[in-house]
């Protein structure tokens, strides 16, 4: 575990603590209080944006665990989120379970589904696995479109969650469900990656043969990574379905899955804060394109009436290519460099 010099931990608990210094406690408390107050301070537009961000963070956090830490690149995350959304809709609308029960249940169901999706990882890796997960995506979406229980092409309508008569039917109210779940899931991921399981994941990522020689059960850990990642995707899907009040297959295309992988690359593979950086940067880029494209369309009429979709994809691809070429370790790496140089401020090294 890396520490800056001058750090003296006198007890084991102190050494293992996630929040280590009084300053960090202060920042954490302040930001938590601020988070609770956000819906009061900010206008509606920002709250719905933040809700969207938080759900994406949960989803990409799952992807970070399977791809960033365990090294199994998965293009199936959008399909797994779809499974989560649809299973949540079925749990609450068709079986009449409460939202609070459906939230973990859809996570577990998606996790079990992910075990099937992750099964090819036992035989193949690298590009082969990446393309196999694309295949899993298409097969899953096909099943969703052709099974009776998922409402086929109509999707499923979802009622907003409620607690003791209080209905969470606006974005501001959903914020108070989504945010705690996101914080809890982030805390879980942050802890998971520094346990025995997390170290095993990293060993599998770095060299799976060597990991096997060291006595790591590849079968168990690869499937566990897929299970955890899909659990995250399922929870994200459940929240998404209850936020948008519909589970519809068009919300989960292959392009979405590509965006999630892109967020991971931009943020930094194998870093929990990196997830936040990637998601926030790409989402802001997306919003910027939405704002800029009508202006561009007015200036350059040959672009057509609605260039947003094309421009968004192009901008995203460009950002991704630039990151891969010049900053392959992502924004998380930049962040570490920034922190180190601030700590050493008057000196260069």
């Amino acid at each position, binding site marked *: 575990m890396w520490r800056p010099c001058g750090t003296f931990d006198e007890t084991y608990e102190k050494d293992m603590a996630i929040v280590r210094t009084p300053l960090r406690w202060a920042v954490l408390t302040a930001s938590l209080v601020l988070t609770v107050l956000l819906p009061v301070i900010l206008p509606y537009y920002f709250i719905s944006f933040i809700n969207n961000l938080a759900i994406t963070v949960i989803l990409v956090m799952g992807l970070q665990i399977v791809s960033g830490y365990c090294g199994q*690149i998965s293009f199936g995350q959008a399909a797994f989120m779809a499974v989560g959304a649809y299973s949540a809709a079925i749990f609450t609308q068709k079986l009449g379970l409460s939202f609070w029960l459906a939230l973990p249940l859809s996570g577990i169901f998606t996790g079990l589904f992910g075990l099937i999706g992750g*099964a*090819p990882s036992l*035989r*193949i890796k*690298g*590009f*082969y696995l*990446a*393309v*196999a997960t*694309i*295949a*899993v995506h*298409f*097969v899953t979406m*096909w099943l969703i*479109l*052709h099974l009776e229980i998922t409402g086929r092409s109509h999707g499923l309508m979802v009622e907003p969650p409620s607690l003791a008569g209080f209905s969470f039917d606006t974005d501001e109210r959903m914020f108070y469900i989504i945010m705690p779940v996101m914080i809890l899931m982030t805390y879980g991921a942050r802890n998971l990656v520094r346990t025995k399981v997390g170290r095993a994941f990293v060993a599998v990522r770095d*060299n799976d*043969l*060597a990991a096997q*020689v060291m006595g790591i059960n590849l079968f168990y850990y690869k499937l566990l990574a897929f299970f955890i990642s899909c659990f995250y995707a399922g929870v994200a899907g459940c929240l998404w379905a209850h936020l948008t009040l519909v589970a519809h297959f068009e919300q989960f295309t*292959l392009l979405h899955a*590509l965006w999630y*992988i*892109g967020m991971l*690359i931009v943020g930094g593979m194998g870093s929990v804060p990196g997830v936040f950086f990637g998601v926030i940067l790409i989402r802001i880029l997306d919003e910027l394109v939405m704002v800029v494209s009508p202006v561009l369309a007015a200036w350059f009429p040959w*672009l*057509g*009436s609605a*260039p947003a*979709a*094309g*421009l*968004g*994809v*192009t*901008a*995203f*691809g*460009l950002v*991704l*290519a630039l990151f*891969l*070429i010049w900053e*392959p370790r992502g924004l998380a790496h930049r962040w570490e460099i920034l922190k180190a140089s601030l700590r050493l401020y008057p000196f260069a090294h």
Partner: protein
Amino acid sequence: MEGFLQLLMLGLMEGGLYAIVAAAIVLVFKSTHVVSLAHGQIMGFGALAFWIGVVQLKLPLALALIGSLAFSAAMGWLIERAAMRPLIGQPLFASFLNTFAVFLVLDGIFQLILKGESYSFSAYLPKGNVSVGDFTLPITQLVSFLGSLLVFLGLALFYRWTKLGLGMRATAEDHQLAQSTGISVRGVFSAIWVLSSATATFAGLALANVTDIYYTLPYMGIKGLVVALVGGLESLPGALLAGLLLGVLENVSAGYLDPLVGGGIKEVAAYVLLLFVLLVKPYGLFGLVRIERI
């Protein structure tokens, strides 16, 4: 059984097109060990260039063909220069992801150009049907199919008889050994992107002939990837065989299973096949089995 034979013929025709998309991907993988998603877009742009040549500029077919090949070759060269070369020496996976970044950039441009419409040049091609025994086939499809076989033959001859082809085969074996015998590995990389882009253009033309130029055309590149994986990423004959197999499988399964499950089998047959093949033979039907060391 006549229905079956008709499906078989249709499948073979379509399979020929899949095979040639896969051939472009296999070409790149053989020499650079990078799996390319970008070739789907090159297909789309090549077909678009041909459309502009034939429909808008009213060029003769041969000239338009040469023009679109030159355009896509230049595009392939540019992609290699701008996106792939800076990543030489980085992990291969970064290059793979970069081809998908290139795919996204081009996808946006492609959508901007098309503006949601679809373009067709099939009206400008010779029309008519050919009767072979009991069935009739559109002549354009037959030409596409024979053309794709010719491209395969051409590639085989190129690899076998030319010096550049020899260099490419040597590079495929081992980059450092090839360089030590005086082959410019970077030159080979450039050449291979140019060659594979031209191949992808043939595929794009043949596909656009059947399905029109629409924004979904580049996504056929993913199907090409599936074919390449089923056949084995190093093997051109594997690509041909897997392409034909897949075309036949799609059409036959669609013909027999669609009435039972209510349609849409054609969209997933390829992916189900891929999952099965990868579970049984992880390196595809004709791929090289790699021996790994720690």
